[in-house]
């Protein structure tokens, strides 16, 4: 336990001391914030207006609350994974600069070493993502607040689970990397691509039916759906209370992926959590097994 604690401490300090790694991890949330503030926010606002029943008008506060919730959920859904990939770069950097040799000549267990990278990345990513959550909540409060305390808590839980998932996924992928070039390539692909395939940049419902079916196999999409559901649940409640028909609300929920479908069947919230947790556990098990196997081969 002492070894694990000290290794984790080392990894966390190194991440925050490495300005390159730290600032790179903030790029994705920052870009998303700029995108939404400049034009995506208005695009979403206009698209909501088009699905409203004829003659029904919603207040700016409600519309802003909905768009703000979507902005927050998109930023958080992407950041929890992309920030984890950046934080976890230390694992590859240790291979590149040879530090890993210095760690593995000691009697430390491969599982301890592997989990120390995982846990340090988890902590670093959580610090950044929970800070981002706080900033987003302040932003949403300033434009239209309809969230309950329970929504906020559930949102924090979603962020926590998504960070665990993102960290596990990055650990498995980074295990196979051993150079700066590979690390940059993976970072670029994840930053550019993950937002699309998890439904953060564009709702999955707006993709073709075939692509929707393929994406429904990716656990990250369920994480995005959970974050989004809890971000905008209060706003939909407010819409219901002022008399917006259930069908209209449901169609809006479908449109922004609050409702997720697996081959036509709606996926229950508890199943979304189950998918996220199980995939995280499986990824962690694969990661530990890969490390143990590598050590065995060395002998």
């Amino acid at each position: 336990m002492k070894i694990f604690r000290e290794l984790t401490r080392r990894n966390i300090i190194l991440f925050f001391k490495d300005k390159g790694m730290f600032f790179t991890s903030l790029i994705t949330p920052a870009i998303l914030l700029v995108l939404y503030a400049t034009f995506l926010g208005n695009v979403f606002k206009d698209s909501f207006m088009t699905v409203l029943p004829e003659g029904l008008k919603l207040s700016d506060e409600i519309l802003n609350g909905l768009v703000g919730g979507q902005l927050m959920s998109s930023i958080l859904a992407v950041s929890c994974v992309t920030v984890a990939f950046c934080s976890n770069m230390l694992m590859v950097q240790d291979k590149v600069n040879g530090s890993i040799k210095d760690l593995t000549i000691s009697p430390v267990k491969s599982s301890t070493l592997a989990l120390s990278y995982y846990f340090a990345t988890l902590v670093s990513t959580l610090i950044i993502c929970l800070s981002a959550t706080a900033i987003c909540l302040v932003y949403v409060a300033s434009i239209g607040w309809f969230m309950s305390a329970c929504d906020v808590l559930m949102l924090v839980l979603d962020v926590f689970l998504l960070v665990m998932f993102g960290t596990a996924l990055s650990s498995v992928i980074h295990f196979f990397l051993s150079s700066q070039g590979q690390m940059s390539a993976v970072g670029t692909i994840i930053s550019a691509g993950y937002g699309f395939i998890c439904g953060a940049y564009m709702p999955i419902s707006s993709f073709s039916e075939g692509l929707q079916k393929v994406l429904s196999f990716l656990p990250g999409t369920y994480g995005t759906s959970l974050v989004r559901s809890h971000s905008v649940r209060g706003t939909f409640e407010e819409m219901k209370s002022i008399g917006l028909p259930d069908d209209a609300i449901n169609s809006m929920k479908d449109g922004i992926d609050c409702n997720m479908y697996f081959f036509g069947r709606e996926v229950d919230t508890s199943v979304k959590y189950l998918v996220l947790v199980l995939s995280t556990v499986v990824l962690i098990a694969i990661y530990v097994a890969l490390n143990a196997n590598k050590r065995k081969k060395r002998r």
Partner: protein
Amino acid sequence: MKRIIEINNLYKSFGDVKAVQDLSFCVKEGELFAFLGVNGAGKSTTINIICGQLAKDSGTVVIDDKPLEEDVNTTKTKLGVVFQNSVLDKALSVKDNLRSRAALYGITGAEFTKRLEELSKMLSFEDLLKRTLGKLSGGQLRRIDIARALLHRPKILILDEPTTGLDPQTRKIIWNVIDKLRRDENMTVFLTTHYMEEAADADYVVILDSGRLVAKGTPLELKNKYTGDFITIYNVEEETVKALGAKYEPIKDAFRLSVPNTAAATKLIVENPEVFKDFEITKGKMDDVFLTVTGKALTGGAEK
């Protein structure tokens, strides 16, 4: 003396490249063992196998009476390694670096503080503890590398070219510490170096070439076997030296004659007392041994 490292018929290949071939040697407890070879001779591969970083293809490696594969983690606690290039964390302070590495051996809290104090005194880096590692000079960095290797009081200290690129004063400090450790704690030192004067001080030398052992013995045995003696004669004319019939080369203010051994040198001097009025006899150097057995010269890190 007990054999602390015993390697028999070791083989290791990387694809078609035979890095180590049929390597057998042993290192005795407490000795300074020099492991020589040009870059790519198989030194690092052998060290990586000894440290459990690399799997061997075949052969046996026994460390302190235990086969390596039997309990590699216990073996690792007996080894301290100073790598060719520092592999500590440049962004962390000296103390944070040593704290994280000490924890790998279960050394934490008061035990770590005590050990850090001992090592910082021994290697004179008390004033560097709070400094960031990346801001240290080459000599300071090397002292921290050695401290890291000694944190857990290993029985065997593996030094992979520890003094390459260092100034003479730092080299002297480092060798004084190593000598003290050998004297006081009977620590075995396994050294690879490109400095032949360091190898000349070793108790035993093994020379590798293309993955194979090409020579082994004490420096004296190797010099006697692979080089002759040299007689340097002062204040004589070249014609006189030429008349002696031995191979020679002019050097500054003198001539250097090569003779097969000390007996031949004595015979030449006794037969020509009028020529040998101002002279000295020296043994061949480790550079000459290395050149003879490998056909290559080593000079401070570069192969010639």
